[in-house]
């Protein structure tokens, strides 16, 4: 278990002699490749590498720590600095707006989140504000029926109308709004999202991001943040081989943190974000 062994490493730090620069360079190059393959942003990896290398040379390793342990301890700390803690998810009355790119898992995650709140003893209610995707209404309605959660949708109305009516109709304490996939270059869709946000006044705007997202994660997260302000990120499909490195850029660009991770297709496959486990997986 990573954090326990690290605690022991930190305890033993006094009095070790330094490790040679060439070994450090090899270790850092190794870490660099690991982070790049985990989809961490190239620029971010380069910045981290510089800091990791400087600290590895300057700081004394724990007595008996081999070069790899010494560097990994520093890598771990640097990653914790970027990642921070998991988003605070209050168990109280609130409205949550779910947004993100196409196919990232918003609809499934909305239902998973409803399940999460239901399990915590709250009364969730869901609004389908995706008026574009064929079958979006049926998809979310069926998921809500699986867990007996009140669902509101209108098959032929626009998103804004649906949200207006849904917020009035639904009696739940946690109202979760599903929206259509969109991206920064679709001006009409961004405008619609801003209007939904203005109307619903959500307590949380959660960005759903596919765990396999590549180098553009930060850029797209920033676009969503610029439009409506993102309060938390949910990384999906981490039950595969994707490491979710794009999440680091997403949270640094949105100045937020990761709230949950999606780990499967069923409604029970939503976990609270755990920084330690995420970093261990990132470092492979």
């Amino acid at each position, binding site marked *: 278990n990573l954090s326990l062994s690290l605690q022991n490493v930190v305890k033993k730090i006094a009095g070790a002699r330094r490790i040679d620069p060439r070994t450090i360079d090899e270790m850092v190059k190794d870490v660099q*490749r690991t982070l*790049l*393959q*985990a*989809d961490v942003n*190239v*620029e971010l990896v*380069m910045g981290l590498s510089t800091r990791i290398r400087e600290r590895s040379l300057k700081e004394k390793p724990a007595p008996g720590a081999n070069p790899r342990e010494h560097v990994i301890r520093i890598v771990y700390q640097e990653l914790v600095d970027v990642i921070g803690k998991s988003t605070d998810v209050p168990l109280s009355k609130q409205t949550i707006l779910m947004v993100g*790119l*196409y*196919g*990232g*898992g918003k609809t499934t995650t909305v239902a998973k989140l409803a399940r999460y709140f239901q399990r915590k003893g709250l009364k969730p209610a869901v609004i389908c504000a995706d008026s*574009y*995707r*064929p*079958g*979006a*209404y*049926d*998809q*979310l*309605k*069926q*998921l809500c029926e*699986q867990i007996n959660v009140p669902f509101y949708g209108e098959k032929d109305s626009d998103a804004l109308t649906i949200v207006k009516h849904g917020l009035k109709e639904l009696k739940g304490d946690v109202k979760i709004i599903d929206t259509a996939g969109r*991206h920064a*270059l679709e001006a009409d869709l961004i405008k619609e999202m801003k209007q939904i946000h203005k109307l619903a006044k959500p307590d949380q705007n959660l960005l759903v991001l*596919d*765990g*396999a*997202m*590549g*180098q*553009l994660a930060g850029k*797209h997260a920033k676009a969503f943040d610029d439009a409506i302000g993102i309060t938390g990120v949910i990384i999906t*499909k981490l*039950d*595969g*081989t*994707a*490491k979710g*490195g*794009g999440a680091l850029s997403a949270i640094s660009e949105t100045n937020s943190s990761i709230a949950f991770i999606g780990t499967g*297709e069923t409604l029970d496959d939503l976990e609270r974000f755990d920084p330690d486990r995420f970093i261990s997986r990132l470092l492979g």
Partner: protein
Amino acid sequence: RELDEKTLERMLWDFETGLLESDVALPVAEDIVQSIRARLLGTKRKHADDILESALRDALGKVLSAKDFDFDEYIESAKKPINIVFVGINGTGKTTTIAKIAHRLKKSGYSIVIAAGDTHRAGASEQIGIHAKRLGVKLIEHQVGADPAAVVYDGVQYTRARHKDVLLADTAGRLHTKVGLMDQLKKICRVTSPDLVIFVDEMIAGNDAVVRAKMFNEVVGIDGSILTKADVDAKGGAAISIAYATGAPILFLGTGQEYDDMVKFQPEWLLDRLFE
């Protein structure tokens, strides 16, 4: 004067970083750089940039126009009915892509049948049902939870019996790490012997594109790939990664959500973007 090793390595590193920033997967970028390093050793410094660009275009050109396969020519000349199955992980755009292909082929005068091979996900049959209705295309479907192999097989029989030209079979999205689901896909292909297995993945995917393309290729064999959401990520790196991993041609790029939002893949388009 000749390129010294230090300058060469710096050039190759800048070049590799450029590939990585364009979303090319790390092992693929390293491979490409390795093949180019050999070409550049011993060349003159003033020629290095041009040699680098032409070496890259050659290396990528080979990868990207793998087995020069033209989809339209294939549909025209192949014996009918043609069975095409679409595979890939969750959410990449398979169902939407099938609608686009059906639209394109129908415009060219072919008769199309769609098999609703996703009998699992919520709203899947409603989604494909709406597309089939809008396109005026026959849809073969069974009840929710039915065996997908049976649905696709049923589609094959119908297409043959009614003398239709092309069957487009949709399948549920599945992660390459789920052995049971990959076995199910293997069974669908074994039972229905598709003429083409098309891998649908997204341009916005990073390093995982290589991993899953390889896995799908190993399990069912990929004849061609379609890369969606190129309107979201126009860098194109994932195209290189997937072409590299499968050795199969990239047939189309998805460039939006509407039926017309699909273009034939041109390697030159990608190479030009890389050098911008």
